[in-house]
């Protein structure tokens, strides 16, 4: 590791704007999003459909394609700005410096190739290994993600595996070349609940062991909080609150974060205190074309006042670290 860059963040995004080009002009999907992930740490980006979290992840991978476009902002990956990088440059970075796992592993795997070969390809492609040694290393990689009988499994095709196994293979491919950053977009949403926990645990453990940082994208605050050190909550294209996982959950400051935590029943709550009506967040999740002005959460917020309709709230420091964007904080 280069000592000069040793203490910089592995990913640093600042003032990122992403828009969708359309007949009636561009629609802003991501608005001045910024955060940084220190080396080896897990960072969670939480929000609902249409909040811009997945598009942010695509931007980090350099996978934005027309009509999606980055209109401004910087993305520093491992000390270099990849915001304007060409496809050829990005291809060199992907897999080696940053890799990604998706929600549905079946669509990301090649159905016509044994999974061992698909892992081995990473070593051949990025590290110039011969096929023979790559195949051997692929079996090691499978063992690493706790696939039982990896020698036999390496010859299987994706359709022969269960959903959980496929996601393990995806993790093995993504982590094959020990990237600095792993982007995980809803990696367990398509899996069964009992398998989910295991996959998340596996991802966290393996990444921690080899020093890979994680950008975890999810709608599930509880899941993200379990594996991430720091969390940013996005709403309608903006980060509304950011802080360390424990503090954000124990003492959420933004009304939306508070709402998200209150809106799901917690196991054991009824046994402890009887059935209470769940705290609702009124209204609907806005579509990007109709993001409201001012604070974008104001139509659904019980604390909204005149200023929330007109002014975009600025980021204020939270008492427990991190930032919150609310006019009524404190």
């Amino acid at each position: 590791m280069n000592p000069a860059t040793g203490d910089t963040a592995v990913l640093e995004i600042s003032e990122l704007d992403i828009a969708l080009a359309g007949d009636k002009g561009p629609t802003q999907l991501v608005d001045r999003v910024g955060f940084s992930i220190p080396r080896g740490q897990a960072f969670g980006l939480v929000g609902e459909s249409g909040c811009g979290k997945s598009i942010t992840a695509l931007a980090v991978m350099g996978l934005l394609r027309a009509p999606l476009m980055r209109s401004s902002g910087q993305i520093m990956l491992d000390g270099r700005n990849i915001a304007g990088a060409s496809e050829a440059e990005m291809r060199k970075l992907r897999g080696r410096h940053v890799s990604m796992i998706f929600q549905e592993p079946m669509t990301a795997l090649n159905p016509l190739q044994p999974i061992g070969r698909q892992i081995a390809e990473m070593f051949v492609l990025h590290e110039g290994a011969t096929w023979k040694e790559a195949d051997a290393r692929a079996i090691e990689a499978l063992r690493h993600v706790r696939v039982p009988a990896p020698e036999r499994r390496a010859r299987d095709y994706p359709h022969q595996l269960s959903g959980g196994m496929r996601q393990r293979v995806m993790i093995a491919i993504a982590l094959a070349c020990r990237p600095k950053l792993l982007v995980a977009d809803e990696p367990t949403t398509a899996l069964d609940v009992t398998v989910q926990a295991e996959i998340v645990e596996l991802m966290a453990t393996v990444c921690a062991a080899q020093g890979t940082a994680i950008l975890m994208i999810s709608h599930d605050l509880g899941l993200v909080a379990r594996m991430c050190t720091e969390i940013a909550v996005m709403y309608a294209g903006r980060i509304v609150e950011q802080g360390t996982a424990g503090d954000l959950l124990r003492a959420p400051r933004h009304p939306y974060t508070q709402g998200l935590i209150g809106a799901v029943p917690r196991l054991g709550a009824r046994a402890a205190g009887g059935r209470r009506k769940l705290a609702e967040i009124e209204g609907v999740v806005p579509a990007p074309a109709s993001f409201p002005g001012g604070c974008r959460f104001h139509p659904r917020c019980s604390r909204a006042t005149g200023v929330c309709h007109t002014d975009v709230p600025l980021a204020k420091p939270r008492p427990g670290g991190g930032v919150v964007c609310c006019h009524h904080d404190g």
Partner: protein
Amino acid sequence: MKMRANLWIGGGFFALAVTAALLAPVLATHDPVLGADLMRSEEPPGREFWFGSDTQGRDIWSRVVYGARISLTVGVVSQLINSVIGTVLGITAGYWGGWWDDLVSGLTNIMLAIPSLIFALAIMAILGPGLFSLLIALGLTNWTFTCRIARAQAMALKSQGYVQAAKVMGSGDLSIMLRELLPNMAGPLIVIATLGMGGSILAEAALSFLGLGIQPPFPSWGSMLSDARDNIRAVPWLAAFPGLAIFFTVLGLNLLGDGLRDILDPQSRSRLP
């Protein structure tokens, strides 16, 4: 928003043909059947005969305009018969499945294995020439594509939640097919029908050309071509104008079908969540 050119151009050609058919008595300058004048046969296009005159001295313009009535009637009516047969068979086969589906699929495959013109010829041979037989022959030949589309759509749609919900509501099969399935597959069926109309017009031309369709002296575009075949070198306008009429009408229908596909295709209507 964009790429609607084919819709407008195609619709325009077809609208022209329909207008000609509807306003034939107004547009025609001569009687298309009785206006024979052997003294003025085979005159080239000019002031008196805009499209020239035929071997019997009849005005080709008037005959083309009246011919639109027959060609379009054949196109629309026979395709309507095809659409009804295909939709009914396809939707029931797809929705009910089982032995009925096997039967319909088998019949469809047999139909697809027989060249449709030969099949139509055979029916015409049994029924004898004439407009009515033409409608029946063409109406029984080209329902297979409609049937396949309707069957595939019904199979895809019947597992949709709203169809299940209708069943749970106690709706009968007929009501489910009419209210839940049909409206949601109308788009592709309309496209197929539009394209099929063009096919029927061509088939009418072919059958009439072979002398099995519309009988002289009544004008259809196909029978006019048939009349022209002996003199096609010496008197090219005999074949050129009915030929162009067929060409532009069928081209118009095909463009219209493509245009409709673009707007009726659910993919192109999808919006951002």
